């Protein structure tokens, strides 16, 4: 009697796992585990792809925060800044590493302004507000259509993410954080990989990848 139930369970298990494989076969899934507080945002993208083509990217401002923690666009795409807030803002960038400087000036509520992504590919710049120094967001110049942006919260130490329908030929994944070292990892179909989240040689977490 017991044996029959176990067999049934086993068959059920096979069906479930079979379905799971069919659904996620082309997906790359990942799990971030931070040992201390989580970072601000994460960007993961397959570096071999160059099919992304965006005309405009939009960033709004509300309640003294940027509406997005990170946006992506390829070279020459336009970034439109909006001010949907009740107070004035002044967006600027002064990224010495990427050699990017701009200042869109004072923006009253309801106003907008724009800039062009004209810095080198694979560089991610930080933008801020001159009036509210706590405000920050990032703009990445990437041209990979196979990317994912995960907005992180300090207290959420475990976060799952996925990249959908990734062609098998793409295997080189780059994972970027504002605070931690960038990770480059090779992930082929049917494999798993575990990489460290580090800064100054110190361990701050792990990334588990599955394909």
């Amino acid at each position, binding site marked *: 009697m017991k044996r029959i139930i176990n067999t049934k369970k086993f068959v059920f298990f096979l069906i479930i796992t079979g379905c799971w494989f069919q659904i996620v076969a082309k997906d790359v899934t990942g799990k971030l585990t931070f040992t201390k507080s989580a970072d601000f945002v994460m960007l993961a993208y397959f570096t071999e792809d160059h099919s992304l083509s965006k005309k405009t990217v939009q960033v709004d401002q*509300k*309640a003294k925060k940027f509406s997005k923690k990170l946006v992506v666009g390829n070279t020459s795409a336009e970034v439109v800044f909006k001010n949907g807030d009740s*107070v*004035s803002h002044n967006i600027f960038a002064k990224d010495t590493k990427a050699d990017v400087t701009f200042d869109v000036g004072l923006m009253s509520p309801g106003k907008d302004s724009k800039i062009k992504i004209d810095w080198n590919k694979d560089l991610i710049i930080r933008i801020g507000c*001159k*009036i509210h*120094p706590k405000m920050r967001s990032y703009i990445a110049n990437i041209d990979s259509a196979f990317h994912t942006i995960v907005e992180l919260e300090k207290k959420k130490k475990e976060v799952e993410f996925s990249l959908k329908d990734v062609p098998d030929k793409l295997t080189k994944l780059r994972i970027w954080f504002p605070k931690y070292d960038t990770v480059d990892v090779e992930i082929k179909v049917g494999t798993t990989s575990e990489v460290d989240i580090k800064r100054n040689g110190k361990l701050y977490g792990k990334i588990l990848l599955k394909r």
Partner: protein
Amino acid sequence: MVKQVFFIFIVCVFNSGLVFCEDEKIGVPDRDDIEYPDDDAPSKEEVQLGKMLYFDTRLSLKKNQSCATCHNPELGFGDGLKFSLGTMGGKVGRNAPHIYNLAWNSLFFWDGRAGSLEEQALGPIQAAGEMNMPLDKVIERLKKVKFYRDGFEKVYKDKKIESKNIGKAIAAFERTIIVDNTPFDKYMKGDKDAMSPSAVNGMKLFKGKANCTKCHSGPNFTDNSFHNIGVKGDDIGRQKLVKDATMKGAFKVPGLRNVLLTAPYMHDGSLSTLEEVIKFYNRGGDNKANLSKEMKPLKLTDKEIMDLVSFLGSLTQQLDIKRPKIPKDD
């Protein structure tokens, strides 16, 4: 089913509203939100070490001043003066800011020139007009004291009495100066009798007609922004660091917890009472040149001014900071 969908819809709308207004809201500070350097809260020993340094006059050239001289716990962590006195007897250029709830703060000094509390702590020690004490001389003095020799060895990996660690220790102590159990906090946690009716009305005005939360928002009543609010004088403030016209005469928005205890007010200590401060905002500031866009006359009545002062009073909580016994050279 329809009901369920409607319920989910309502929940979504409600939640998205909360997310958007998060920063505008005033409330009780969350100790879990403090960003400690490298994420770790300091040890008891480090706080103790920092507290001793904070109260030790060895940190000033003439051994007549400690951090606590201008940031005195009995005077709302200020000194009650318009401008503080330095170790040599001269006056400092700006009013001494209080140090309540700086654990949540991001930029320091009135013009925001320090990016961390660790960096800030070392500034006044070396400033000629303040404690006028070169750091190597501080270190030399501290090395003569067993308490410090033992303390630094125990707390820091490199075991060294050096400027970096002095800054760390003082910052660790300062991050423990927390005001989060005021009548306002009790009210927010459900004790609706904790605040007077006048203060409750003042809170409504604070968020509404008086426009205060345009800058004094968040659990510590500051959004850490920089504004020119129209105080007379030629101090360029933030513009010294950020070369922008809007930053001329702009200063950091101070947190308002225990504001009642921190008189006199403004970066130049030019206003002595909270009533004067509210009246200053009511007339939209005194110097209209380069005035922040958020400043405008408020048309508050005398009763409304009184209610706002009542509300600010409800942000008061006396902290019991015991002065340590300063060790002798040995």
